[in-house]
């Protein structure tokens, strides 16, 4: 059951009434208990074993966090180190074991004939990468003395809060936990934003991402040998936008859900394809992951405190790890490396020259660089990458896709991206002026229109796979 399924929508609406009734009758604590129960039930709808694993993980992290500060006020480091190690081990076993096993076997087989590592039939629990990182962020914040350890109930909710459980945003404790712990009565103060974000999510995810995938990205990536080079370039751009619409659509919907529950989530996207250089791109794309990598990988490695060369090495390591976080595959690692090396080149340019590209040129170069990176991100193996790259040399095939139409769509997307914030702000103001039933009809009409426009089928979220 995921966030845009009809069953989720119906259950969530019912839950909202119960939740706000509990708030007015019994207060915030009751709301938190309801949320905790709902979050675990929601996770059980995927697999009850996932919920059990999450419970185990959360208890270990929370108990270790409580063990950091002794009764006499001294902060100890070992619970933090042990907690981080356990969290990474847990993630490593469930997400990376088979990757390492197959790679190790491939390396060992020429030397040790018949060598075999045991097979573990593990299922990757959805959301494990996200809650692991959120758990580490919490533990390290407590370990550094930035945040006090939470009680068990609040801590469990912080790590299982159902709007953010499956694919983030990865919240710091002062963002989500602070709101959970706050004794103040919860409120929905901007319902028009919740409705607007839902409409935005439907447009992005159900319509645009699905349309781009079905019309462009899937055909071109499935069979690159059959398409003209221009179509391949179009398919790659379409995939770039599909990925953005998919993940930012997801972020919009979970932000709306959180708003309806009286919570405010951190921003995850700021029109990334308008970035004028690569570091700007990473300040706009999956912001909560970028800052996690910065805070818990790049800075502990030394950040920019060493010399220039050391800083670049730290950057490449951080980006490569970020790539590996996305998936247990060598193509993801190379994708991270691609961005790391790109950042190094950008820094090198900034070091040797004062001259900067005009903003538009910078945007185009950055977009092309990022799109080429998405080729690695999408590809299942090297054969797929090489088939696609070879296809760029194919100029004789008669195009069978409407590449001019896609080009037009790209122009529209870029133009809208420039004005997205203004459009959203103005829409919110207009929506706020409407009575509640007027807002309701707006949502209904948009939903119906999108259902007519969107390709058939229930869309899955790409980032659930990470």
């Amino acid at each position: 059951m995921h966030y845009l399924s009809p069953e989720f929508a119906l259950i969530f609406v019912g839950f909202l009434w119960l939740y706000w009734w509990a708030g007015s009758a019994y207060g915030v604590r009751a709301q938190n208990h309801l949320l905790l129960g709902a979050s675990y039930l929601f996770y059980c709808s995927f697999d009850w074993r996932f919920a059990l694993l999450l419970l185990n993980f959360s208890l270990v992290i929370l108990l270790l966090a409580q063990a950091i500060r002794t009764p006499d006020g001294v902060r100890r480091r070992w619970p933090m180190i042990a907690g981080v190690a356990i969290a990474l081990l847990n993630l490593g076993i469930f997400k990376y074991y088979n990757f390492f096993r197959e790679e190790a076997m491939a390396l060992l087989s020429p030397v040790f004939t018949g060598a075999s590592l045991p097979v573990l039939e593990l299922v990757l629990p959805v959301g494990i990468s996200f809650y692991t990182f959120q758990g580490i962020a919490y533990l390290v914040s407590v370990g550094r003395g930035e945040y006090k350890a939470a009680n068990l109930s609040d801590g469990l909710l912080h790590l299982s809060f159902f709007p953010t459980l499956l694919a983030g945003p990865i919240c710091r404790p002062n963002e989500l936990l602070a709101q959970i712990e706050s004794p103040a009565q919860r409120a929905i103060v901007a319902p028009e934003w919740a409705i607007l974000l839902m409409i935005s999510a439907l447009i992005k995810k159900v319509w645009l991402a699905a349309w781009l995938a079905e019309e462009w990205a899937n055909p071109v990536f499935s069979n690159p040998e059959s398409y003209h080079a221009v179509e391949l370039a179009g398919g790659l751009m379409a995939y770039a936008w599909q990925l953005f619409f998919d993940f930012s659509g997801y972020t919009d919907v979970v932000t709306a859900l959180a708003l309806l529950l009286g919570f405010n989530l951190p921003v995850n996207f700021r029109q990334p394809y308008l970035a004028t250089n690569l570091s700007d791109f990473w300040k706009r794309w999956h912001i909560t992951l970028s800052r996690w990598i910065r805070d818990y990988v790049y800075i502990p490695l030394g950040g920019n405190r060493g010399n220039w060369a050391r800083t670049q090495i730290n950057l490449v390591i951080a980006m490569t790890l970020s790539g590996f976080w996305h998936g247990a595959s060598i193509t993801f690692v190379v994708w991270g490396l691609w961005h790391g090396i790109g950042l190094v080149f950008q820094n090198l340019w900034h070091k040797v020259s004062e001259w900067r590209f005009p903003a538009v040129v910078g945007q185009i170069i950055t977009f092309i660089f990022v799109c080429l990176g998405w080729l690695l991100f999408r590809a299942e193996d090297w054969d797929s990458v090489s088939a696609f790259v070879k296809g760029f040399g194919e100029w004789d095939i008669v195009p069978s896709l409407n590449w001019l139409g896609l080009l037009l769509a790209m122009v529209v997307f870029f133009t809208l991206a420039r004005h997205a914030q203004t459009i959203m702000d103005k829409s919110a103001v207009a929506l706020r002026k409407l009575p509640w039933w007027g807002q309701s009809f707006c949502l209904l009409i948009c939903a119906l229109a999108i259902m007519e426009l969107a390709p058939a089928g229930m869309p899955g979220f790409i980032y659930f796979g990470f």
Partner: protein
Amino acid sequence: MQLDEKPFLAIEPESQHPSALAAISLACVLLVAIKGNALLQYWQQTHHIFLEFGHLPSASQLIPGSQTLANWQQDINRWTDERAARMLIAGQLLLTGNKALPEPAPLMAAQPKCPDVVIPKATAPTCPAPATNDKQTAEQLQTAAPVVANISIAASENNDETKGADATADPASINEPAAPFVMPDATPEALAIANAPIALQTGDRILLVGDSLMQGVAPHVITALKRNYKVESMDISRHSTGLTYPAFFDWPATVKAAFELENYQVVIVFLGANDPWDMTLQGKYVRYGSERWKEVYSARVKQIIQTAAEHNARLVWLGAPPMGREDLLGKEPLLNEIYANESAKYPLFARFVATAPSLSTDGSSFTKFLELPERGSVMVRTDDGVHFTTQGQKLLAKLMLAQFTHAAQPSIEQQSPQQSEQPVAEPGATPAESKPTATPAPVEQPQQPSPAISQR
């Protein structure tokens, strides 16, 4: 949205949750009321829940002037389709110049003119209709373009507003009386040829039909077929589909529609993962595995095979793989039995290929990790117990490719007289014995004479 920059929590502390909840709830209720039938079909297809509410009111009954809206929508769709078709042609001309124009049909000619190509008498299509307007020209051009994947066949999808909850019943479209199909004689020679690998030759077209399992395998098959045999493939597989819920997606009608649009020499079918569920037929509950269920399901399988046979195409039906998901455990043998039985009824056209031996250590049970000679133990099935990893998809692609071989290339001098003299099809014939197909090629495809058709 930059919520973190908006201190609205501080500005306006009072909660507006009653109005927010009312707005969301009203929108939900109206959405369910308007899209009720689509919702029921979705639940039947994804959760196999049958909710017998009778026929919910359709949108047209609830919204005043909805017919006008529907007409507007049709007009808009037509307008956008026309624009898209023109843009496609413009895009083709821009990139490849005159090459984009189909040969040899003079589509832009003011007067109708039959294509000047050698076509066997029995397969010769009627002279193509003149290009009467831009739209028609665009459609013909589009057809001629080497589209190899993801065609839209929405016409075969059923209108959810008209079907109600009886989603497993046969849609009316399939019950239309079909032209009688005469099964060619299955001589021992023809059978021997039919059982041998299917001969492919350059320019053949292959239709891939199936669900998400096929969607995973298709790219590997398409690439390998193109590389090895220089054949074009059309992948029309669609996730969440099967033969149990024709009101949700109607495969027999879709395959028929695909053949009406173009001719294919081979059809590969791989589905079943969404099928082992109960049906409701004319309001009656039909349990999975019951005699009635088997009868209805077999009829749907037969329709697909017969469509292929009528068009003289060979069909490869891949068996459903062993499933690891709890609610699907042990259910696929019955489906495979039906596929095998129905395929056996058309020995000259259809063959059933079991997938379990290639995907299982013991030949029948679900196996997530397989020992492969070149890679050792690798994961071939995904965590959901249904789908395949890339390695698994490659295994299946290999199994599919093993069904084909290169056709011996007959010379035109040898081929033409035979084809022009013998009007009866024998699909199992070798190239040397080739005879023209009994089924005329569709009128829409005059420019694609395919001697290969007669060789299977």
